[in-house]
């Protein structure tokens, strides 16, 4: 392990401890649940269950795995046209979030979805989300 790498690990550990001590992590968890409830739950359901063949589910959705790299832009910009989730074709307009979500809020939201209702998806870092958003010209750097 190089010195730089080791330093990075140490810094990461320090950050984790700092976050834990301040209780910040817990608040972020609540924030992400609130963001989901405010912006997503009316359509995708409080349990991510979706609605029949109208609204795709987020719980147990293969779309989240297959389109991981496109999810941040999908939340910021919305999506329309047919898409397939768990073998079912959906064709509704998903609007962009109705009020602006920052890069970090989108990160929290994605991680809430990735870890709720039995989902065990790989979580996102803010950096990764910002990079995805830069790719569609929609990062706000916040």
């Amino acid at each position, binding site marked *: 392990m190089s010195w730089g790498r080791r330093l990075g690990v140490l810094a990461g550990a320090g950050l984790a401890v700092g976050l834990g001590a301040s209780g910040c992590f817990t608040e972020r968890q609540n924030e992400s649940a609130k963001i989901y409830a405010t912006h997503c739950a009316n359509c995708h359901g409080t349990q991510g269950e979706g609605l029949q*063949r109208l609204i795709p589910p987020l719980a147990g959705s293969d779309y989240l795995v297959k389109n991981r790299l496109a999810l941040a832009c999908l939340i910021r910009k919305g999506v329309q046209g047919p898409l397939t989730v768990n073998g079912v074709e959906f064709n509704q307009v998903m609007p962009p979030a109705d009020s602006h979500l920052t890069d970090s809020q989108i990160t929290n939201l994605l991680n809430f979805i990735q870890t709720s209702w039995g989902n065990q998806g790989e979580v996102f870092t803010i950096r990764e989300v910002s990079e995805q958003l830069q790719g569609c010209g929609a990062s706000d750097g916040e």
Partner: protein
Amino acid sequence: MMSTFLPRALRLGLFALSTTLLLPACSLDSKPADTERLPFLGEREVKPHADGSPADTVYATIPDFRLTDQDRQVITNQTFAGKVYVTDFFFATCPSICPKMQSELLRVYTKFKDDPRVLFLSHTIDPAHDSIPVLRDYAQRLGIQDASRWHFATASHDSIFSLARAYMTAAQVDKGVPGGFAHSGAFALIDPQRRIRGVYDGMNPLEVQRLLDDLPVLLKEVEADQKAAK
């Protein structure tokens, strides 16, 4: 003078209402022959569109209407003759409350889908976009194959919006909200005499439960009335 009179009348009215609501509920088990009755909703109710004029004892009824459903069938008041129906207003591309309210209405439908005495009627408030094929696709995606049980209907913009007022389910164009329409997400329960017997917030599962509880009460009343008329 009116200002002191009105609140008192209102209080008396509420007391009377609560008495009529509570007493039959208490005696329901002991006297099954008694018919519990739902209230009549209408102009007397304090609603956003009311002008504040004194109470009227004439019960509001749903005016004549003529709609087209997802099977291109013409739907009128006659379609619901002798039936009880639950109605709401939605639009297919609604990004805000519609999926939630339609999923709640689907819950009610599922409970009564095999009961021919109960029908369902969803009006689009976006007739410009929601053509008959769009409505048909929407209904099928929601899992409704039988249009004669749950009509997804359209008409001219003006007819729909005046009907929404008649059903006491506020709906209006509002470019300021997501999707371009403001609507309350309410469900209305209509009896065979076109009277509104309940209005429920379709976004609130507890309110929808109240609708589920009210439906059998109204069906029982209708049955008793039909027997008495024979």
